[in-house]
């Protein structure tokens, strides 16, 4: 992946979240505080502005800029989780323009590890991990090149997000609802699916 592709990923994600902002807020309204779309959108618009102003030249610099911007502008769980995950990923990315497939997988692995460590959630707890963890394991296990695997993952991401409807929330404020959280799709899983769809388009080359 090149630095340009990585920046395109955030442009795509910013646009997708902006487009689905109300839907994400509505999902969050059912089991949280109706701000997930607003939270991510605020952060990502800042990311796009800062990325344009600073034009970071390497994958590491871009990733760090995105992380720090989310950490300082998104005052919800998702901001802290995406921010800390991306800080961890930035340590894996090289301070150069390009990285190979294996490094990208390792960076996403570091992202997921950090979110698991920070949030203490596991798969099945009805969070963004219910999209990221199966996506990561496909990526790590599949022998085909990522130009093939990532678009496949992107095609499944929405299903994984929708499957969170049957789960009971164990982490995040939705946990206070106990069994009442069942029957609603997790907003963070839904936005995570948008991210994978963007990655699929960019790695698949169809942007």
């Amino acid at each position: 992946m090149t630095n340009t592709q990585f920046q395109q990923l955030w442009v795509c994600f910013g646009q997708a979240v902006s487009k689905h902002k109300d839907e994400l807020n509505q999902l969050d309204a059912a089991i949280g505080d109706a701000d997930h779309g607003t939270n991510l959108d605020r952060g990502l618009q800042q990311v796009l502005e800062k990325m344009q102003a600073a034009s970071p030249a390497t994958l590491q610099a871009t990733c760090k800029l995105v992380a720090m911007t989310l950490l300082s502008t998104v005052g919800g769980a998702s901001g802290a989780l995406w921010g800390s995950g991306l800080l961890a990923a930035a340590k894996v990315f090289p301070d150069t323009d390009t990285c190979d497939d294996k490094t990208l997988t390792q960076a996403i692995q570091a992202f997921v590890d950090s979110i698991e460590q920070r949030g203490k959630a596991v798969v099945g707890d009805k969070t963004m991990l219910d999209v990221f963890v199966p996506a990561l394991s496909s990526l790590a296990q599949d022998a085909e090149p990522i130009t093939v695997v990532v678009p496949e993952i992107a095609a499944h991401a929405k299903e994984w997000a929708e499957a969170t409807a049957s789960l009971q929330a164990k982490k995040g404020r939705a946990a206070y609802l106990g069994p009442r959280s069942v029957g609603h799709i997790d907003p963070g899983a839904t936005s995570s699916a948008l991210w994978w769809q963007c990655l699929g388009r960019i790695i698949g080359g169809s942007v």
Partner: protein
Amino acid sequence: MTGMLLVSHSRKLVNGLADLTRELSGSVVPIETAGGEDSLGVTASMVASGITSLLVQGVDGILILGDLGSAFISAETAIDLVSSPTPVHIVDAPLVEGTIAAAMTLSTGAAIQDAISAATEAYTIRKR
């Protein structure tokens, strides 16, 4: 609709908590606060005014949560003073966590007893 009355020795504390709870539960639950403003403390009279404000809004039940045991003592005395036509429950729960849990539960349309359980169970839910 069930209303909530948040009682603290510091009115600022419960006003901030009310803001947060309204955001978390989508402003559908009527919330009032009682507590000291210039000097810290909470009298039975303050709690009685809070109960009356909720009654005026037509609530059909009231949950009271408080910060310290003495807020509960004032609340019990306030209940005697007001003699509310609708049931008033004093809920022993951690103030912030119990208030959020109860309001989120009420906002899903749940019954008052479910909200009381959710608030009480907040003593057993860990944050990490």
